[in-house]
């Protein structure tokens, strides 16, 4: 039975017909919408490669049933940059060498964006490492990842200050 789903993905409204009620958000993004920036590392919620933001919160898209997020706002790695400019977290990952093979990177970045927004870790490297530990990186670029989150936290705080 086909069901209809409404999503706002990276700012655009989308209506989708789904044949399979069990389709994951990850498969919908990658296979239906061609948004392949979100990666499939394990497809069982254990690696974080598929992290996206659903209504601002980080979620493993491989565990999220698309249908159960009807009406949600989804942000993927493709929707993060601000026009031509990289998002500060993206820029920090380049500046701090936060990756090697890059496969985990979209998930790391989405996770970092949410972690900073959660404002739980602040500038404490220990808490950042804890907060990022759901995103595995087999290349073990963890030093750069931690640095990038620290730098991006500072950059975003500065932006906020300026805006205020």
């Amino acid at each position, binding site marked *: 039975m086909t069901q209809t789903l409404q999503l706002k993905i990276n700012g655009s409204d989308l209506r989708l017909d789904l044949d399979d009620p069990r389709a994951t958000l990850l498969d919908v993004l*990658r296979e239906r919408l*061609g*948004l*392949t*920036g*979100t*990666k*499939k*590392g*394990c*497809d*069982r919620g*254990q*690696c974080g*490669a598929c992290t996206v933001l659903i209504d601002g919160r980080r979620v493993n898209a491989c565990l999220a049933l698309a249908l159960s997020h009807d009406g949600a706002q989804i942000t*993927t*790695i*493709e929707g*993060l*940059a601000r026009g031509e400019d*990289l998002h500060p977290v*993206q*820029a920090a*990952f*380049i*500046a701090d*060498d936060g*990756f*090697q*093979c*890059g*496969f*985990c*990177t*979209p998930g790391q*970045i989405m996770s970092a964006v949410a972690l900073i927004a959660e404002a739980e870790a602040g500038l404490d*490297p*220990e808490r*950042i*490492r*804890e907060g*990022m*530990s*759901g*995103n*595995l*990186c*087999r*290349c*073990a*670029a*963890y*030093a*750069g*990842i*931690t640095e990038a989150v620290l730098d991006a936290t500072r950059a975003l705080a500065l932006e906020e200050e300026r805006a205020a």
Partner: protein
Amino acid sequence: MSAGKPLPHDAAPLHVTGEARYIDDLPTPRGTLHLAFGLSPAAHAEILSLDLAAVREAPGVVAVFGPDAFDPMPDCSPSVHDEPLLAQGVVHYLGQPMFLVVAESHLAARKAARLGRMELRERPAILTVDEALAAESRFEDGPVVWQKGDAAAAIAGAAQQIEGSIELGGQEHFYLEGQVALALPQEGGDMVVQSSTQHPTEIQHKVAHALHLPMSAVRVEVRRMGGGFGGKESQGNALAIACALAARATGRPCKMRYDRDDDMTITGKRHDLRIDYRAGFDAEGRLAGVEFRHLMRCGWSQDLSLPVADRAMLHADNAYHLPAVRIESHRLRTNTQSATAFRGFGGPQGMVGVERVMDHVAHQLGRDPLEVRRVNFYAARVDRPGGCLPPSPATGRAFFAGNPPPEDFRTLITPEDIFRQKMGGEDAEALRVLDAEEVDLTSRGAETFQHGEAPPAPEGVQTTPYHMPVEDFIGHELVGALAESADYARRRAEIAAWNAGNPILKRGIALTPVKFGISFTLTWLNQAGALVHLYQDGSVHLNHGGTEMGQGLFQKVAQVAAGVFGLEAEAEAVKITATDTGKVPNTSATAASSGSDLNGMAARIACETLRDRLAAMLAERHQAQAAEVRFAGGRVTVAGAEYSFAEVVGLAYQARISLSSTGYYRTPKIVWDRKKGEGRPFFYFAYGAAVSEVVIDTLTGENRLLRVDVLHDTGRSLNPALDIGQIEGGFVQGAGWLTTEELVWDGKGRLRTHAPSTYKIPACSDRPPVFNVALWGRDNPEDTVGRSKAVGEPPFMLGISVLMALSDAVAACGDGSVYPGLDGPATAERVLAAVGRQRG
């Protein structure tokens, strides 16, 4: 963009925006089919019947191939043709592909793959090295033995002796991007394959053979991998072959991606092993003789096990001079996944053996293990008169396409050589599926026993157990510098005092060195090619034989190339596109850490050829000498005139000068006879050392890494940022292997740890709070590209310091009478058990 600058990856902006494409991200043509294997549920059994009717009828299924579908059955092996694509008659491990499903979607294929019905008559499965030894189930006729001097006599004659053994677990690669391939059928039966592989030529060769096509009819392309670590040297063969066969049969593009569980169940991992050792030494811990016995669990097929086991033997000395040594290596055949290449390629396993001996000797003598390590180091490098570096050879280093290789480039191989090796057990012989003419020359699994003679070691120079002179040993200075910067002695004393006052938590510290040989041990693989085009607008397009898997190879090679043309400052002056067997042929795997050494050199040579042509053209124009033409800062100057690089290229085009060149490089100096275990298998050694400090909870065995200090030798680094990333990543992966990454098979041969929930790779939170990495930064005495050193694998073995630090912490729980004897991985359970042994 010059060599030496800490630039980020060439694809960095693509990675952070999600634009970087891996194979599963490529838009597939309409009508693409998806493949899945049906897997064996038993570790060793006769196949009495296989009923695939339900599979064929499953929704979305387009075709199903069983063992009778192909004649002959295509082979996936990188060595002795003992890996039929689908099991024939007998299954050899739990997870072995038995049939192939082709369906309209990935999910449909996977679902259908569960519907095969089979009747199996189980045979006893050989799962452990002891079972394999008892059954004489092995590859080759017997163990390989290398020796130098009379180890047994030296041990017996020494003042003191130790004896022991250590179990070392395997390791799952867990490349974050799983195995994947996509075959696109072309006109006239040709095939294009996109494969996540470290070895495009291997894929080309195997696919061509399976399709009965010449290699020229198959083209393989690899833009990047989401991690490889050795797991994509041979393990992608099955997927590429399956896709190509299905694409030919259906006329439609075919794609195969293993799900994570399937990937872990089907593919090979690092070799696990047991090392038995005996050593004799004096009161200072100086070794007189040592014996090692390696019992390597190779799994069901040979794959790359022989060269892996060789490399374990080649690193049994690590940084230590062993005056008398005997190494016996058993390559055991078991009913498990076929163990394969993994970063270090056996080197780490061999190295842990001798580090264990050092630790054990120190414990017996009650000395600081670092002192024992130091007294056993190779003699320091002696700088030759007339300069601080030994002279590099004037000739024989490189030759260009078109020039014949010099005569000493002897490689004699015949199919008989390859088939001379025998594997144990009837199964093994029966497995051979292909004709003898088919030789896989570019695989590390290829075999030869003839490599020429190594020159004798110069007088007074210490040699390795395989008789290679060690002339560039920098361990003394490097370890000295690290011990000082990491404040080793003071911290060691402090930890002892701290431990005395803390009954529950115990800390430990250890410094271990690394000396790792750089080169493929199959000598002829040490060659590489590159292809460079200059376009009329001055842009540079480069292809080389190496593959990018995150190590930053493309960026390094681009920096080298840009440097030749004086285009350092221009961002993206050199474009490197996907590795493609149609651009550069007969490539070696991107492995053995040799990617930038080989490909950087080939690229440099190609670029120099073009630069020389441009210079000659300008010199003629200006009545000057070609040597006076300068390429720097994006400008070209000669006899007072100045041009932009693009202008010069434009002039050269109009002067009808070829703007395309290949470059070819082969590593000099290496000769190796693996049968005798003699020669110079390595061009040079890469060095490093690490100090690790840990704390253990003696009530639970839980442990934490507190601080790590690394000093690593990258020669004159081509790119310090990328190198530091490799060093940190390698260290963490090595530490993971020896601490949390535990593979568990049950009594039926089923891998129980086949997902990240049960198999624990290091996470961000496992990184130590203090992690200092410094580069040694002195030139490679050998003439490598920019005097750099390879950096892919050596840092992995820095992780051994963590195991030794844990051993130190455990030892602090006892009175010094019982050696901790910690096995790897030193999981919390093992640490707890070792603490228990200390406390009696």
